[in-house]
Structure formats: structure tokens, C-alpha cells
């Protein structure tokens, strides 16, 4: 194994300063609303059926942690984040 050690290192945020681009596969959304709870500035839900709506496809750096958390927690793997 090259460059790998078994000891955990402190979590880093290698992407902190770079741009983030979000894409949604909204057909898969099951309207759980967890993304809106975690990042209300970035996600919303349609009134009629609760399907996710993207408010900001390229959110500012202070939103990045929340967006990553929302993408990880979404139970339908709807949110894709590119950094």
C-alpha cells in the first residue's frame, strides 16, 4: 500500500475553497425533505408533491459542508456534488 497508513488523520476539507456544482436526479426523490432541513439555502421542495428543488446549483463555500452532508444523507441518492 503506497501512501496509506492505518492511523486516522484529522478530517480535512480539501475542497473548501474550490467551486461546487450540484446536480439532481429529481425523478428519484422520495420527498423525505432531509436535504431541506440540512441546507435550506440550497434545497427546497415543490409544494404539490414535495420533490426536491435546487435553489442554488453553485453554492458559496460556507454552504459546502451542509451540502455534502445532505448529499450523503439523502435516502434516494438524488444529490450529486461535483467539486
Amino acid at each position, binding site marked *: 500500500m503506497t501512501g496509506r497508513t492505518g*492511523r*486516522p488523520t484529522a478530517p480535512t476539507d480539501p475542497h473548501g475553497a474550490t467551486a461546487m456544482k450540484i446536480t439532481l436526479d429529481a425523478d*428519484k426523490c422520495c420527498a423525505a425533505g432531509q436535504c431541506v432541513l440540512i441546507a435550506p439555502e440550497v434545497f427546497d421542495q415543490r409544494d404539490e408533491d414535495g420533490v426536491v428543488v435546487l435553489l442554488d446549483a453553485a453554492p458559496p463555500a460556507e454552504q459546502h459542508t451542509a451540502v455534502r452532508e445532505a448529499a450523503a444523507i439523502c435516502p434516494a441518492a438524488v444529490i450529486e456534488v461535483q467539486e
Partner: protein
Amino acid sequence: MTTRPIAVVGASAAGITAAEALRRAGWTGPLTLIGDEPHLPYDRPPLSKQLLHGAWEPARLMLRTAEQLAPLDLDLRLGTRATGLDVATRTLTLDDGQRLACAGVIIATGVAARTLPAADGLTGVFTLRTLDDALALRDRLSGGPRRLVVVGNGVLGCEAAAVARELGHEVTLIGREPVPMAAAVGPGMGELLADEHRARGVRLLTGEVAAFEPAAAADRPVQVDGVRLVDGSRLPADLVLLAIGSEPAVGWLTDPALDTTDGLGCDAYCAAAPGIYAAGDVARWEHPVHGRPLRFEHRMNATEQAMAAARNLVAELTAEAVNGTAEAAGDGAEPPERRPFAPVPYFWSDQYGLKLQAYGLTTGADQVETTVLDRDARRAVALFGRAGRAVGVLACALPPRQLRSLRALVATPVLWEEARDRLREATTVG
């Protein structure tokens, strides 16, 4: 010195989320993901919905693309079953004979569908847990109407019955409980949904299966032809779906250091033993807010618990490293702390056009109050209480904005009367 890996056992919703969360938490060592299914991690909820319906093909269920998996640098072992775990040495045994000594283990083996021995050896009898199960059932539901008997009127049985009706099949739903899904949604909501199933043409029966009757022909394999109930009645059937619950996949965990009475018992941090954590359907843990052991078979819990277990395992290994060798503490960073896992549980179910959504605990309640807001639209809410406090809330066909506000209602158990007032307010305004 070769570095020992962290191994995640079970390559589904909880397993893949745990693997990602381990990397995010700073684990740069080897990471092994072991799953006994041949498929890359896929999502189960659509199996009884869009996939069974034929609206989606299996590719849509994949939880991660190859490009998303690549940066995780996984030692991915699909089609491989873990057969044992020695707790003291954190050593896994695999069905290919390998032994894997690990730094830490996350167990995410989920549950398996329960079957009935009476159905052994009969074709036309299905369960619905895996992609292969769902594709096999879907195949038999294509090409002409069939008589389908769904045994078990829980949430899964009801979802499958709804899809089969929409596809034009003749559907009988039989359960021990007179009200479908009563255990998960309460009697009032169960009745409301029973009305919908009846209106859509599903035949609802209460009873218990005594035997499966084979077709008369001496063909091999023998095809099921009917279901005999304990009361003597007979339901003709081309297909039978067993939706009678599940068993946690803990049979391989025989080390007496582990408690496997109902899933794998864990503490509030999702730890089953030092260096060994669990997440998802298989994990029973001490919920710090509710103060009792809980186990959920809900999709949201699989992700949330996997993230918690991964973070806590990395925190434990970091502390071990710091305590173990002075030099290991070199980077001087404050080690991360383990945190109790205290989620607000969430689940949903889709039947016909109706969406059921619940926050908190809906099972094990000693008090349930259902309010029908619009009978024709099947719009309703139910509040679940235990020992005088509201612990769960369930909604059917509720607008999303109203629904989200219900989460706060049961985030921590509040007094029943107060929750009831707040629920009334939340569902009358807006």
C-alpha cells in the same frame, strides 16, 4: 508493518454510506467492503415500487456510479460472504476461506426475508428483498393478468399489492391482523388505507396460511396453485408473495461477546464491542433520547446510522492510536469525540398515489390518535404516544411544508396534550 484494514460487511445502503463516511472522517488506511450479493450497492425501496411496476430498470437503483466509487479506493469484494467474526482480535472469516484481521469492523448485513417451510420446493412463491427477487416477481407479473396472493399485510405486502393492482392483476391481501399495516401506522390510518386498497379492487382478508397447494400435474418443479387457510378456505393462486417480515442477518455472528437476540445489540454509540460497530436494519442500539433499545428497518436510518457508526469508529481508533504510542500522537490534533446516535427516525411508503411519511416512533405506542383531514383524498395525520408523551407522528397525503413542521414535534418527546395542540395547529394553517 502492514496496516490492517477497516472492513465493512454488507454492501448495501448502510455499507456504502459507512465506507464513504469512513473516508470523510479521515480514515486513509485500507478499506474493505464485503457483500454477498453479486451487485454493486443498490437501493431497495424502489424494488416494491418503480422497479416492480416496470417504470425503472435496475440501473436506476444503483446507489453510486463507478466514478463515485473510484476515489474511495475500496477493496471491494462482491459475491463474498462473511462467515465469522472473532471479536477479541477483530478477525473476519470469509466464505472463500480467507481470514481478515481488521483494525475495525462495521457490520451492515441488514435483514433477510422470512419464508415459510411449507413453500419449500414450490415455484411461483416469492419473497421481495433483493433485486433478484424483484426481477423474478416482475417477470411473472408481465404478460397477462395473474391471480396473486400476498401473504402478510404489513407495509411491504401493501406496497406490492398496490403495484400488482395497478398492473391489472387479481390481488388478494391476507394478513393475521384485521387492519393492514396496523403495527406500523396504527389502526385508524390502517383503516383509511384499507379503504383505498378496497376501492382499487384489492381483496382484503384476515386469516392464517395452513398450506400451499401444488398444481395437480406431476411437472417438475411443482407450481403453486392455491393457498389453504387455517379456517379451511382456499384461495386460488398463480403467484404467491410472502411478505411476512424479516430476520436480522446475524446468523454468522456466533462469538458469545456479541448480543444477537434481535439484531446486533449496540450501545448508544452503535458499538457492539471495542472496534466493532453496526448500522442499518441489523443494528439494535440504545437510543439516548428514547432510553430503550431500538432497531429500525427504514432507509433513512441506514444512511444516518452508517454515518454515525463510521465517525465513532474512526474516533475510537484515533484515541486507541493516541493512547497506544506516544509518537502516534505526533500531529497534536484534538482527537475527535465519539457521539451518541440520536436521530429523529423517518420512514415513508408509497401506495397508489398516496405517500405515507412518519417521524419518530410509530411502533410500541400505548396511545394513538388519528385525525382524518380529508377522507376522499385520504389525507390524515396520526399521533403516537408512550407513557404520556408524544413519540411519533405519521401523515398520509400531507403537503410537504406541513409535513416538515411535524418533525420538530417529536424530535424530543413532549407531553401528549402539547403535541396534540401543536399538531392541530400545524395541519390547519397553510
